[in-house]
């Protein structure tokens, strides 16, 4: 059987999760490098419409894996359905986006299949016929090229933003769609999930802010956040924070930027005392301009900053507030 790539796309409540287009873009890039055909699969109940939407992309085929037991999502149902399908289809490489949902079931799925997943990859290399996946290690300080040692099926997940969804190619004609009804026996699903919800009222919508001043652990104490707020006010921007600041209750959760909080892409993101942990970067690396202030010259935030200030934010911010006020007259 020739080697194929299968991109498993994600849906929630009948809509395609847009990050899936990044997975398709990744699959298309690997297909171009290896010559292996790319197919896609969507998992759920009543997913025909999404399958058709996906079929507009340049793909050899789209599979709709259907079962009423696949809605709502549970790791038991998804692992069961995909194990059945993948065991019979036998793709060489299975790709997924590194979403919280995929993290919830992919290790279970690969273990059930005696295989392994290289998760949270940011790219791939094809060298001498060998496929390697690049991952950030030690919170981005180092990078690793990781390869598979077994026969497969091989699994890899891609980090949000590692590929551009708008670069995923459309097909010249719709790809054929095949519905695969999967049988999930009674008793397989053990978790009983309730509907998802957003916690508390959202007082601020950071995704609408043009300028964001964000604080990390370098702010040291809650009372110091005041100078960051003054800077945000002077610039006409919004205050935000990395996760530890919100976990400590120093700022409310609706100010959190990162994989669990808001994903923002403002004109300017000013990171004060933020080291640049991966979970934070995925929430703001799309910003048009990034200024980072941190006293550690090795901080991963400097990898993605347009302007870097290696120094103490408590020395830098007060004169900066004054200069901004002067400039605004």
């Amino acid at each position, binding site marked *: 059987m020739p080697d194929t790539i299968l991109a498993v796309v994600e849906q929630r409540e009948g809509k395609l999760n847009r990050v899936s287009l990044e997975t398709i873009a990744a699959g298309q890039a690997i297909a171009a490098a290896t010559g292996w055909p790319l197919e896609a699969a969507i998992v759920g109940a009543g997913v025909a419409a999404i399958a058709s939407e996906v079929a507009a992309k340049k793909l050899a085929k789209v599979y709709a894996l259907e079962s009423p037991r696949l809605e709502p999502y549970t790791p038991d149902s998804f692992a069961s359905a995909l194990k059945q399908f993948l065991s019979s289809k036998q793709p060489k490489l299975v790709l997924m986006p590194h979403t919280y949902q995929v993290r919830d079931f992919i290790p279970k799925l690969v273990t059930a299949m005696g295989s392994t997943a290289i998760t949270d990859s940011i790219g791939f290399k094809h060298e001498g016929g060998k496929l390697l996946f690049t991952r950030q290690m030690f919170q981005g300080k180092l990078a*690793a090229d990781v390869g598979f040692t077994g026969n497969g099926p091989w699994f890899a997940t891609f980090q949000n933003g590692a590929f551009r969804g708008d670069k995923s190619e459309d097909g010249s004609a719709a790809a054929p769609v095949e519905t695969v009804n999967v049988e999930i026996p009674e008793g397989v699903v053990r978790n009983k999930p309730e509907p998802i*919800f957003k916690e508390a009222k959202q007082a601020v919508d950071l995704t609408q802010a043009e300028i964001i001043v964000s604080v990390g652990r370098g702010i040291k104490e809650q009372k110091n956040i005041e100078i960051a707020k003054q800077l945000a006010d002077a610039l006409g921007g919004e205050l935000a924070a990395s996760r530890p600041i919100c*976990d400590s209750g120093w700022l409310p959760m609706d100010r959190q930027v990162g994989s669990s909080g808001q994903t923002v892409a403002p004109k300017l993101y000013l990171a004060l005392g933020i080291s640049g942990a991966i979970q934070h970067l995925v929430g703001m690396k799309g910003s048009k301009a990034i200024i980072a202030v941190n006293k550690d010259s090795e901080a991963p935030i400097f990898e993605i900053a*347009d302007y870097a200030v290696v120094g103490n934010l408590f020395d830098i911010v007060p004169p900066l507030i004054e200069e901004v006020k002067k400039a605004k007259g």
Partner: protein
Amino acid sequence: MKILVCMKQVPQKDAPLKVNDAGTWIREDVQYEVNEPDAYALEEALRQREKHKGEVVVVTSGPARAQQVLREALAKGADRAIHLEDDKFVGMDAFNTAKAIAAAIKDEKFDLIFTGLQSDDYGYAQTGVILAELLGWPHATIIMQIEKTDVGIRVKRELEAGYFQFVDMPTPAVLTIQSGINKLRYATLIGIKQAKNKPLRKVPLAEVQSALGENLQTIERLYVPQKTKKTETIEGPPAEVAKKLVDKLRNELRVL
């Protein structure tokens, strides 16, 4: 409630890392600390024991130096510890690590197993879920709240973009715990003293070897990432830096 907490020792957050000569791992002459999400997992286990009585057992796999993580956990209040001790545990993939833990605890009867949601060194976020599959237990990930119910537990899963979800599950179960679920306690002096007398069982690699296999993935090379972004460093005394930044904000970024 009998709870197992899987904990990992990782290089300290601000440790300067150097790649080893082979280019496949870091030079180990750095300072280590407990993986931060695992500290939250331990804290949650201790709180559950405070609420429901029971036992908290901590386990780690790693070289001799990893014992420090267990000592700290015992000092914070864990009842006993298990150390899968061998240098070879450092290079093991998540599948083998989970298999080793499963083998080490095969004679125990835990109600819950906690892990941190991921490690700060590899960041794979897999070991806990793999362990659940090996044990045949239900699991849930990125957990922010745990309540005991008559038929098991009710947990709050964190999702992206500020969304959450409650899930009812039977026990025994594996949960991966999110940072910030609680506030970490400090070990007290009494706790540190008491820790010296708490059981710490060492499990040599030979004892679990038969359960393990070859790694299914391998790090071909580890390296300092090549920068793709062009970064301009703004230098000088603070007053000068402030002036230069405002100049950029006005003339290059046009936000003023």
